[in-house]
């Protein structure tokens, strides 16, 4: 053996030969991978519709952290989703998490998400449908569907079919520590207020371009031209030095806000909820340019063999108990509007404008987070902001 190794080290085997054979093998591997890639995104047309008792079960849910996987509130998450679903079906779901919508979509688009249910947000819904990755739901199989507000129902309708069941929703708005910050006006401009240099956090997504678009008076920041995008890019680059960090996880932002590292940030309602629960003097601003509201929903994978199980899971998600959990624990809204708001923390009703939802989810108070047809172009411009 030692002698053989010595021979190898002494290169008695031709290096050219070795590379040639390795290259051939690698080429074959690439060809095989190409074939796999070209078929990965194909829609599953053979989804069976056997009765629920004959379905395999073991529902696989592809979701955000904190929505059943037990990362944040293990007991409450289990009580909200797992137990009611188990009671209804006798099945136990498993959870696979994604970090953000883009990350989640990428995995699906590359054919690496063999799951049953997915939980993206509305700006990605059409991408999933175009990819052929999801199939329409049958709302008549979801008992609680009738309790979901029509205000959000349209989020999940594409080509006249209910491809997504709208569930959770929330805002994007500036949040600040009122003990440290005195805004000159209620505006997104707080995110680039020079008085608070290095005390500001932006989110690490291309939505910063949209925010800049609203601030700079672009008519429709969700469909910006190259010139408009370039203007927002240059604007953000000119303000970037004021920023302490870009956050990827809302909880990271909250921790730094709590620690006092930052006083101002692009925020989701959960950060405001945490701050309120801790008694911090935080303000969730209603900027004059309008907040942005997002909605996320459940999608049913085209290849799912758990069609009826998935509907039962969507039913649990559409239940008022889920709404109570989200509003109490995350300060997120829910499409089920039958919650008794008097039982919610007082701050959440005001923060989410739950007492007048129709006005709250319409301009000028709030703009709907929309699908961006040129998302890759936006992503490229946002990449340029970060790289500059």
């Amino acid at each position: 053996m030692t002698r053989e190794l010595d021979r190898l080290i002494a290169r008695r085997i031709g290096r050219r030969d070795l590379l040639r054979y390795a290259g051939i093998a690698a080429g074959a591997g690439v060809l095989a991978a190409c074939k796999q890639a070209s078929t990965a995104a194909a829609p599953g047309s053979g989804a069976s519709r056997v009765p629920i008792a004959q379905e395999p079960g073991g529902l696989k849910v592809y979701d955000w952290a904190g929505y059943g996987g037990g990362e944040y509130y293990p007991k409450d998450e289990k009580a909200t989703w797992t137990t009611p679903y188990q009671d209804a079906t006798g099945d136990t779901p498993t959870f696979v998490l994604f970090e953000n919508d883009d990350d989640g979509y990428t995995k699906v688009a590359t054919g690496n998400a063999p799951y049953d249910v997915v939980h993206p947000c509305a700006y990605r819904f059409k991408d999933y449908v175009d990819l052929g990755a999801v199939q329409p739901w049958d709302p008549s199989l979801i008992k609680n569907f009738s309790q979901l507000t029509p205000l959000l129902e349209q989020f999940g309708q594409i080509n006249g079919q209910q491809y997504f069941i709208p569930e959770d929703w929330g805002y994007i708005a500036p949040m600040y520590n009122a003990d440290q910050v005195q805004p000159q006006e209620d505006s997104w401009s707080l995110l680039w207020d020079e008085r608070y240099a290095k005390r500001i956090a932006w989110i690490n997504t291309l939505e910063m371009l949209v925010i800049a678009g609203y601030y700079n008076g672009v008519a429709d920041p969700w469909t910006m031209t190259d010139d408009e995008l370039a203007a927002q890019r240059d604007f953000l680059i000119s303000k970037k030095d004021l920023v302490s960090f870009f956050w990827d996880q809302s909880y990271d932002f909250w921790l730094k806000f709590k620690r006092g590292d930052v006083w101002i940030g692009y925020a989701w309602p959960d950060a405001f909820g945490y701050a309120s629960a801790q008694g911090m003097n935080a303000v969730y601003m209603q900027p004059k340019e309008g907040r942005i509201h997002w909605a996320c929903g459940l999608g049913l994978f085209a290849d799912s063999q758990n069609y009826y199980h998935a509907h039962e899971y969507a039913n649990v998600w559409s239940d008022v108990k889920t709404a109570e959990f989200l509003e109490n624990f995350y300060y997120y809204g829910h499409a089920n509007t039958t919650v008794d708001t008097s039982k919610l923390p007082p701050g959440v009703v005001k923060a989410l404008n739950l007492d007048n939802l129709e006005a709250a989810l319409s301009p000028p108070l709030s703009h709907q987070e929309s699908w961006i047809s040129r998302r890759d172009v936006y992503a490229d411009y946002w990449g340029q902001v970060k790289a500059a």
Partner: protein
Amino acid sequence: MASVDADRSWRRRERASTAGLLSGPVLWLVLFFLGPVLYVAAYSVGGIKIFPTDAGVVSVGDWKRFLVGGSVYLGLFWKSVRISLTVSVIVVLLAYPVGYFLALCVKKRKYVLLLLIIAPFLTSYLLRVLAWEVILGDTGVINSFLTSVHLRSAGHPITWLLYSQFSVVVVLAYVWVPFVALPIFVSLDNLDLSLLEAAGDLGASRLRTFWRVTLPLSLPGVVAAFVFVFVPTIGEFVTPLLVGGPSGYMYGNAIQDLFTRGTDWQTGSVLAMFLLIVVAGLMALFGRYVRVRSVAA
């Protein structure tokens, strides 16, 4: 005749045994290195289509945009090179005395001390990096100390300690010093001590002996150490992600973002292949000057 047959049989066995020995490593290399690299290379010129938004047309357009189109990513690459060079120089300067002390000053238990130096490797990389947040943060150890001794007024911490290029350089230097001390130690440990004695006998001072004998003989270790830091840190993305902030964003972060935050894998592939080519070129260049045996004995 019998001896010819025996010779042939021996050669056959030798070839079979060689092929058997090689098959594992070659297969591994092909499956997990060459294959993915070729895949990424093919993607960089549009030879592979995964997303609906992929053009699916073979073109070197993205390469042209990156190399001669005034791409912001090329500027980011040079920024990363600058940061990596800074880190590499600092790390080598810090690690050399450590290696020198262990190899030439310590007589007993030098390997115990060596183990102590590399002990940080026994803890999680993530934890080690995150610990620096506690040290460098606005309310961290350094700022709290400066406030307590009245060198900074309360509420006015030094904000550039964290989420800056400074914090990236500090943390990367911290992470790599123990690792880099090893090749320098090996290089110095293999020195023929009689050469140092001869220099002394010929009247050279300790400093002159170091400059004229020790340092030149340990240069292969120093160069190897430099390469060990420089090559991985050009593509570094975890540390800048955790402590870099907007100004500490590096080339590796751009590659990661292009692959995970969007579907522009073609540009991501161009950036990744460019990095690979540069690193391979650097390795080839350094390989000509570094005698591997002299630092890996």
